[in-house]
């Protein structure tokens, strides 16, 4: 047994000087990692999966208390001294983190950062270390490894940065790789490449991988064994085939059920609590067909947005972020916009609201060209087209109570006669998005991501908009919370007849909510068709690649990521 965790408990000392409280994060977790095995830790945020993994090398903050046993090849790591742990870190056990952008030091070149563990742990000379670093980069599939050695992290894309992180982790050929949500920040296509890379390196180096993820779809493709965690305890563990084909625990079953899939389109998604309670309100009936002749609320004709990058002293280069986008959006319908990062989908959404000034084209809203309006008319139109942003932690003002947040837009646009009426309206909207009334006096930091996203949606609804632009509105949420928010969006659409522009990189989500799909690449629309059509018969290679990259979970038969 390579690593054996026995009854691990981790608690954090919290609170200010004086009154200290002990908050348990992990409550007695046990599992084993045999050699040359990929073990996946799955759970929602707050389930204690990352804390469990980080306590192996004691990479936790100082206020953490650990008890239990962590046996590394028979040695208890909880009792190990700092120098002993430092000798293990990077040499025997290596880590890859979620956000490659912030895990790499921006002021050193990739080469310098790669050489550090080689020189420190393996005692290589500078020249030999550089040669080995180049080999490692080549192994991780980075093109032109020699040139990349001299590059700084910002010169690489997210996927390339994650490759560098993996190369760094594998530099000393560790026995165990801890990968903490290594693909969550990446596009689906890049995610697939990174998963393949990890699987390949595992076979090549005959190491074990502890893979942490909230996404069962990803886990099913890469792991041999799965441990499902919730609220700091293990709900179920077993072989991947057993977890996916015959899950024993209600929570595991609910997790499996709540993910939107590419193959069927239920009217509502399953929500964990309902599923565990045995409710079957979701997943049975297919979505009702929408009225194809509903009035067009938004029509976009050859919309374009360019950024100008300064070059030299006077020159400037045009960067076409969005070119020639045209579509029609009917009342009560949803337009899905998919593409990799950098494809211009977010810029397109912001341009619709004129949060970016467009460089060309027309946005016709209710018969008026939005782009030709003067300031006052624009203010009136602004009310009718609203946006929900990706990151619910950043899109609410932390110094406003939820009540203030909701009343502000009404006060600006003169909706409601006085403050009392606005407050009533705000409370009604909170109830509508499924939040309790005491939310009104609370501050954003008291809420989870899913609740904040509900508040953000309620803020848009205060203005009675007709079109909502949802810019990756569920991408930052856990799978289970994502299902709740998607259900809410669908309910609101049915009730209020809203039209959505739904921007996402996740095809399964887009498939669930959209009627029509726009596939964007490098600022241009490469394919535009109904959701069913795009999935059933994609016309473009690019669309097919996006579809192929969606994680499908464990499939019976030979493993998806077999040794190549």
């Amino acid at each position, binding site marked *: 047994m390579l690593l054996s965790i026995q009854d691990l408990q981790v608690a954090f000392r919290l609170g*200010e000087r004086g009154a200290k409280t002990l908050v348990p994060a992990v409550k007695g977790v046990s599992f084993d990692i045999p050699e040359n095995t990929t073990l996946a830790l799955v759970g929602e945020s707050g389930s204690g999966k990352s804390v469990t993994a980080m306590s192996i090398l004691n990479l936790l903050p100082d206020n953490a208390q650990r008890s239990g046993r962590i046996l590394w090849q028979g040695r208890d790591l909880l009792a190990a001294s700092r120098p002993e742990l430092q000798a293990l870190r990077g040499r025997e056990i290596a880590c890859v983190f979620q956000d490659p952008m912030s895990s790499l030091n921006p002021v050193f070149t990739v080469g310098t950062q790669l050489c550090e563990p080689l020189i420190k742990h393996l005692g290589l000379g500078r020249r030999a270390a550089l040669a080995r670093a180049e080999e490692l980069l080549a192994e991780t599939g980075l093109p032109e490894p020699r040139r990349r050695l001299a590059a700084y992290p910002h010169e690489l894309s997210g996927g390339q940065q994650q490759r560098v992180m993996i190369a760094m982790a594998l530099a000393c050929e560790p026995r165990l790789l801890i990968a903490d949500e290594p693909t969550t920040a990446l596009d689906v296509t890049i995610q697939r490449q990174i998963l393949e890379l990890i699987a390949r390196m595992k076979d090549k180096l005959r190491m074990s991988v502890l893979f942490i993820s909230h996404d069962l779809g990803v886990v099913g493709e890469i792991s041999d064994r799965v441990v499902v965690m919730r609220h700091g305890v293990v709900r179920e563990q077993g072989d991947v085939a057993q977890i996916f084909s015959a899950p024993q625990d209600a929570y595991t079953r609910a997790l499996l059920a709540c993910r939107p899939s590419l193959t069927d389109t239920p009217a509502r998604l399953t929500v964990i609590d309902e599923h565990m309670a045995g409710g079957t309100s979701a997943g049975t009936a297919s979505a009702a067909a929408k009225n194809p002749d509903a009035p067009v609320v938004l029509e976009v004709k050859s919309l374009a947005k360019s950024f100008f990058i300064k070059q030299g002293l006077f020159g400037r280069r045009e960067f076409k972020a969005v070119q020639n986008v045209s579509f029609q959006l009917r009342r009560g319908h949803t337009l899905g916009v998919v593409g990799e990062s950098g494809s211009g989908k977010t810029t397109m959404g912001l341009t619709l609201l004129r*949060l970016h000034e467009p460089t060309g084209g027309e946005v016709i809203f209710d018969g008026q060209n939005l782009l030709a309006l003067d300031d006052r008319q624009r*203010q009136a139109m602004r009310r009718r087209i609203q*946006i929900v942003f990706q990151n619910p932690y950043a899109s609410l003002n932390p110094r406003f109570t939820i009540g203030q947040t909701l009343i502000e837009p009404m006060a600006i646009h003169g909706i409601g006669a006085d403050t009392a009426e606005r407050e009533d309206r705000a409370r009604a909207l909170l109830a509508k998005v499924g939040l309790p009334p*005491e939310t009104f*006096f609370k501050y954003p930091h008291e809420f989870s991501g899913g609740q904040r996203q509900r508040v953000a949606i309620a803020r848009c609804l205060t*203005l009675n908009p007709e079109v909502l632009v949802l810019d990756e509105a569920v991408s930052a949420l856990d799978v289970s919370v994502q299902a709740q928010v998607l259900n809410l969006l669908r309910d609101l659409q049915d009730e209020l007849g809203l039209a959505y522009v739904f921007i996402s990189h996740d095809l399964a989500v887009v498939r669930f909510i959209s009627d029509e799909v726009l596939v964007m690449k490098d600022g241009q629309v490469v394919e535009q068709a109904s959701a069913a059509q795009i999935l059933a018969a994609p016309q473009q290679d690019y669309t097919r690649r996006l579809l192929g990259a969606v994680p499908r979970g464990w499939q019976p038969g030979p493993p998806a990521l077999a040794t190549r």
Partner: protein
Amino acid sequence: MSAVMPTAAMPVQRSEGVWRTAWRRFKGDRVAMTSLVIVLAFITLIGAAASGLVASQWQRELAVPNAPPTFLGPRPAEDAGTLAGPEAKPGAPVDLSDIDPLAPRYAEWAERAAKLQTAEAAKVETLPLGADRLGRDVLAKAVKGTEVSVFVGVLAALLATVIGTLLGAAAGFFGGKVGDFLEWLYNVFTAVPDILLIFAFAAVLGRGVDTVVLILALTGWTGLYRQVRAEFIKHSSREYVRAAEAIGASATSRMFRHILPNVSHVILVRMSLLVVGFIKSEVILSYLGLGVPIDQVSWGTMLAEAQGELILGHWWQLATATAFMAVFVTAFSLMADGWRDALDPKLRGAE
């Protein structure tokens, strides 16, 4: 008897506001609380001095010149014998009454002089913290000096903060031409050596407490401006500001209703540092003779006087002014540090 629903009577739970949370965190910080108490004590002292309750008589010369502090005891009487001059020669004075035209009136004058009450009180030999070269109480001077110095420091810091925040907010939020112009202004101000700039302003504006305040505010806003500008650049592209724009909030509302409260901890702390810095600057200005006028006293004028006294071994004025300043500045800095920790949202939850 009707059953009363216990929940119905309960008021809706209101959450602790950001400021209240900050105050709770601040209260838990022992060092910061001690500093706060010291600062409050100084403020009370200033209030008392300003309303004339204490140290209103600081200009009275109630002790012998350079009287030492009480704990040192009175200065030993100087041995006059060694300094004997020619007038000390013995011998009867020459009688000049024959030729002195005023001689008949001497007796009359002496009589009148005897009638006059001389108000000359007995000068005390020692004072609690000694006296300056005119015999004025150093303690009273220091208390009165506190009033002027802290007033100058706080008012100048407030003024500089307002200037820096407004310009920084405009430069950071709008950028472009406005930002370029303000950057240019900033560069001009920082390119000129500080002390030269202060001299220039002092030469134009003349002398007085209000001038010192103006000089310090007009030269001291630059650092705060830069920091506020950076914060506004950072925050103006945040999603919550974007969201405010999407709901139609005006530029002013976004700048001052949305962003300003979120960068207030930076501004507050920076302002408290300015207070400390300006108190020290006022000392330097007064020392150079550009500060407060002769008929007022500040820690700076005390230090300026102390320069000459020190050669004669009269160190107590220097020590008193330094001690007052050191205690206040240290307490103020530590208090500011406590505020920073309490207000910074990033530190919340950590031990």
